[in-house]
């Protein structure tokens, strides 16, 4: 393990003094996802030094680490025991930390089949906006004591509190993984992949690049072999590499300075005609769109189909990254923000301009 350091007390003091001076803070971990979300006017507070795996029990399927622990380190520790973070988080840089991963709530290609980042969060220790150190959830799989604050922190972009420690459920790595490729039209790809999802097949990822449908099968070798016969398609020399490339936005599709949109949609939504190019992931439930079309056009298209759109990268206006909240939901968010961070010191503007 590279660095191990408990920085709780210093961080708490930093928060208490920020609260006393009503001075907003810009929370940073490894700074790998600084591109994501709104811009923050606040004094930087570095969380990366609060680092280290606190507890790992492979037989309990539980890992607890400080929020500043590099994601790479966590994955390496798990790999030694043939275990993994099943939500397959994107890193977007070597410095990615566990805290940033959970605060952003991002998940990779396995998400529709294994669950999202929040699905694997079991517990957190946080500093709230009063400078108090609080613990919610725990290191056990089932825990319904009190409101589920742990999962609420996931995807909150650091606006509700500073994550100190995070406990996660981990899963065994599959014994075998193969990627099968078949040529399909966009409409066929959506229909085929949704058809497969209704069958008990060991599929753990499905994406479509506009020409080819890629399906990943994982599990016991016998199950993968049998699944392969049912799914069809061929393997390629690139093998499983595509999942890493898509997860990390290293696939050629993402080589663009144009705005990159993430559309979250019901998986079976028929292909959507929008200006620009698209890459379909998550078995149809997540669609990447590189497009200069107006935000309103894209958001309307997603919303009209039961989804929403996030301006993921290259935003011209960083105040419109996340899909706007409407009336009562917006006021509920303001109330929740106030409940955790009454002085509005944590990451103001990172999630929405008004908090």
């Amino acid at each position: 393990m590279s660095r191990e350091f408990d920085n709780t007390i210093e961080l708490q003091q930093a928060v208490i003094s920020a609260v006393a001076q009503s001075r907003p803070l810009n929370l940073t971990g490894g700074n790998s996802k600084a591109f994501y979300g709104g811009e923050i006017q606040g004094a930087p507070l570095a969380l990366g030094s609060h680092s280290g795996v606190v507890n790992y029990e492979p037989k309990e399927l539980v890992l607890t680490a400080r929020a500043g622990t590099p994601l790479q380190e966590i994955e390496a520790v798990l790999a030694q025991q043939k275990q993994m973070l099943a939500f397959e988080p994107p890193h977007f840089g070597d410095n990615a930390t566990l805290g940033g991963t959970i605060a952003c709530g991002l998940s990779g290609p396995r998400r529709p089949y294994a669950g999202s980042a929040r699905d694997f969060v079991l517990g957190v220790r946080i500093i709230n906006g009063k400078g108090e150190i609080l613990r919610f959830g725990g290191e056990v799989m089932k825990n319904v004591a009190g409101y589920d604050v742990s999962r609420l922190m996931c995807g909150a972009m650091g606006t509700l509190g500073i994550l100190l420690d995070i406990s996660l459920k981990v899963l065994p790595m599959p014994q075998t993984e193969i990627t099968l490729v078949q040529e399909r039209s966009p409409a066929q790809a959506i229909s085929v992949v949704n058809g497969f999802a209704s069958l008990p097949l060991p599929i753990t990822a499905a994406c479509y690049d506009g020409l080819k449908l890629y399906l990943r099968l994982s599990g016991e070798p016998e199950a993968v072999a049998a699944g392969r016969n049912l799914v069809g398609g061929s393997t390629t020399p690139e093998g499983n590499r595509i999942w890493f490339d898509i997860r990390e936005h290293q696939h050629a599709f993402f080589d663009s300075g144009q705005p990159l949109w993430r559309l979250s949609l019901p998986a079976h939504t028929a292909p959507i005609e929008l200006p620009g190019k698209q890459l379909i992931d998550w078995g149809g439930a997540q669609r990447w769109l590189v497009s200069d079309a107006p935000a309103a056009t894209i958001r309307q298209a997603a919303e009209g189909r039961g989804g929403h759109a996030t301006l993921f990268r290259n935003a011209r206006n960083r105040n419109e990254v996340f899909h706007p909240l409407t009336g009562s939901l917006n006021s509920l968010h303001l109330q929740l923000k106030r409940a955790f961070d009454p002085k509005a010191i944590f990451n103001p503007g990172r999630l929405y301009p008004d908090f």
Partner: protein
Amino acid sequence: MTDGAGSNLDKLRLVAALHSILPPQAVIHDTEALRPYECDGLSAYRQTPLVAVLPENQDQVVQIMQLCHRYEIPVVARGAATGLSGGALPLADGLLLSLAKFNRILDIDPVARTARVEPGVRNLAISEAVASMGLYYAPDPSSQIACTIGGNVAENSGGVHCLKYGMTVHNILQLKIVTMEGELLTIGSQSLDTPGYDLLALLTGSEGMLGVVIEVTVKLLPVPQRAQVMLAAFDDVERAATAVGEIIAAGIIPSGLEMMDGLALRAAEDFVHAGYPTDAAAILLCEVDGTNEEVSAAAMRIRDLLRAQGAVEVRTARNDAERISFWKGRKNAFPAVGRIAPDYYCMDGTVPRKRLAEVLTTIGRLSSEYGLPVANVFHAGDGNLHPLILYDANQPGELMCAEELGAEILELCVRVGGTITGEHGVGHEKLHQMCVQFTSAELEQFRALKKAFDPLGLLNPGKAIPQPRHCSEYRTLGREVLTAPGSREGSPP
């Protein structure tokens, strides 16, 4: 009783106002007619509500909530009332909102693999309705024949397949709720995520204190091609617990992994004749599911592991009938234990599995100290323990004695790094233990969170999150555990 909320409308005027929203038969106010609503599955606590209502559409719920909000009348929502923690216990000055008439499956989409249902639909009814499509709804609490999906959301219910398939929170997409102010909100969406805070996760397991669920969209999964269950007998509980860890360490995630101790398995055997080895100290039931090939491979590995861990006997269900029979004993464990004593009190702690042997030994010691037998049924895969305390309510003082023993068991769970409730909820029952598991600041954070949804504190007040006064009273009782090393109050971070 309602922690500050005071009604501004007398009963007669309330009933009259409700009659303007609902047909006469949907407003119950006669004391005798209110009896069936006085408790949930934890019948040791009873309270007749001021009035009970049975709305049948969203608009009526909205109007009822607006009325109650205007006159500051507390509201307790109720599904099938199978809950085991008193979460649906009515309030003497409150309205009981029964969602029993919201029992329609609104929409099934086999392509999207979702079902949109009203909250009063029974858990099992969803799986039954979609079985012909090769789909099912995964969470399967033991009460699934009777419990409703609205209650499952309120409690974040689990079941015997949680380890692999998760709890309610992992298996729903969208909720429609009515707030205490009478506003209809959509939480979550038909997609896998939603902008803003994860309110879907927050609402799930919030015990009816943040909003009233009036519609749920659940995810459906393909029925596994095959499920295979094995039964292993051990002459030592600790060995059985170790075997569970070894199965998981081998990279296998069984769909079900259950343990019963000697007392529980013998009671179950006497009741349903599942063929359990009655001389065993503990049995494990281990089920794997998936494709044919996956199941065959995993089952062989598990059999070898169980033998290597010292199982005195390992049986594999040879057919579906035998598989159902193996499970029958486990699923009927509670009523089976109910037959060997006049009453039983079911606990619901979760512990890290590695502490199981120690926890069971301590429970055994406490059981002798209190003179009350305890049978243990255990979701071994995810560490969720259900000790069943046997007592006789007709013996003066025995109920109180059982409750004290239960409290000690839950506080033991907290001490070893676990929790006071894995799936039954805090409700009315475990308010004291919340003061042990959480610090004052944490409880204050919960209260602030509730205020964001329900500023007047009218929605199921007095449940799940204790008031500061409550905890200080409990703490001044000077219970040993509060000063023991496990206590977190005042301890350094």
